[in-house]
């Protein structure tokens, strides 16, 4: 298993070399969006409206951070459970989104979209939110401020530790890891 340092936006070449199980330290801009924001973004896509950001090459982090203390860009910011974004991810991947960051399983449709359009689902450690919060250097709300923790934020991250979970070759780290460690007690 390899370890890569990547900076957003990501290209097809960045994605193709990644294999499920690889470690990635991600830097650059990532956008936050959860359930409510995804509903609005997909609604805007259907209506042909302008989006809060152009998904091409971008990575979306499924997170609803806790409020920032004075002098800090953000509070704790670990991943939320990703399956709730199953209906939305393939739509955005088709528009050029290159990565999702979250925790937990996603659907077969998401896996297929990752293969077809060269994208990658990165797993982060749920509940390690204080540690991840520290990797965020800047944060700015760019859309839907009324959604509170669910607003869309533009984050600048440095060396955010991630695992490649679904790669662009159809592999699934959760399945591989589970098989490897089953019935070992």
């Amino acid at each position, binding site marked *: 298993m390899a370890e890569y340092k990547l900076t957003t936006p990501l290209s097809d070449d960045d994605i193709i070399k990644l294999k499920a199980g690889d470690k990635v330290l991600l830097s650059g801009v990532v956008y936050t969006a959860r359930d*409510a924001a995804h509903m609005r973004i997909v609604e805007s896509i259907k209506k042909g409206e302008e989006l809060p950001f152009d998904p091409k090459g971008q990575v979306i982090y499924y997170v609803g951070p806790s409020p920032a203390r004075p002098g800090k860009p953000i509070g704790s910011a670990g991943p939320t459970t990703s399956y709730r974004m199953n209906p939305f991810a393939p739509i955005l991947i088709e528009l050029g989104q290159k990565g999702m960051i979250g925790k*937990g399983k996603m659907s077969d449709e998401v896996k297929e979209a990752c293969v077809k359009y060269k994208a990658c689902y990165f797993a982060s450690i749920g509940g390690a939110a*204080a*540690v991840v919060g520290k990797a965020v250097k800047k944060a700015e709300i760019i859309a839907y401020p009324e959604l509170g923790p669910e607003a869309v934020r533009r984050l600048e991250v440095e060396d955010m530790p991630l695992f490649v979970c679904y790669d662009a070759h159809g592999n699934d780290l959760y399945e591989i890891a589970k098989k*490897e460690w089953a019935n070992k*007690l």
Partner: protein
Amino acid sequence: MSEIRNVSVKDIEEAIYKLALDAAYHIPEDILEAEKKAYENEKSETAKKVLETIFENIQVSSEEEFPLCQDTGLGIIFMEVGQDVHFTDGYIIDAINNGVERAYKDGYLRKSSCHPLTRANYGNNLPAIVHTFVVPGNKVKLIFDAKGGGSESMSKVQMLKPADGRAGIVQTVVDWMIQAGPNPCPPTIVGVGIGGDFERAAVMAKHATLRHVGQPSDDPELADMEQEILTKINNSGIGPAGLGGLTTALAVHIEMQPCHIATLPLAINTACHVNRHKEIEL
């Protein structure tokens, strides 16, 4: 019989305020201990790395800058009220809600309560969910449980058939936790409620997650079942954060009470690896 005792709801509000802040930033000792023990027993390198990150997270959080998890939960309160307690200075539920609201504001905790249909965020994390039990005496015991949505979503109530019996219960819990996989932020503490009725089973299951981690049930039959389920869950290979390993659950805790001759209610409530809960007696 104890003497009637006045308890000011102002003291309850203050207690809830402190418990909520404490829970958000400081992991319960028993959970940290169980995680350290799991670390020693782990054979997967990745699992060890994940647990190291969890330990680092616990340390960063207790330095008061970042809550343990960004999902600081809804406030669930288990309140045991002695029947000789007389509350003064206001309405007890208002006081609990005030304590929660103030703590989530002052502590920079995330407000997660929303309208179920419009999903509009109320911005105050209210209302708290209060389970009240009347007990003998004149004391008040409060358990504050900051329950996150990820693990809560991996919970369920199922009305089994009486014929499903012990084997059916074991199978249902194990299958459910394996299906939940990485979603509820393993290593988890699995609370199981057996019997009672539909909603009592659910309350028992959640209450069971708050037991001292790994302390077996007093009932040897249940203790045996807890161990069997735990071994089966940990043989799934899911591991910490779902990235593979021997530690998918830290413990299985079962509570049980009698049920109707026609029913076998079963509830599973999953608590994640931060399992934030704190208690006090007033």
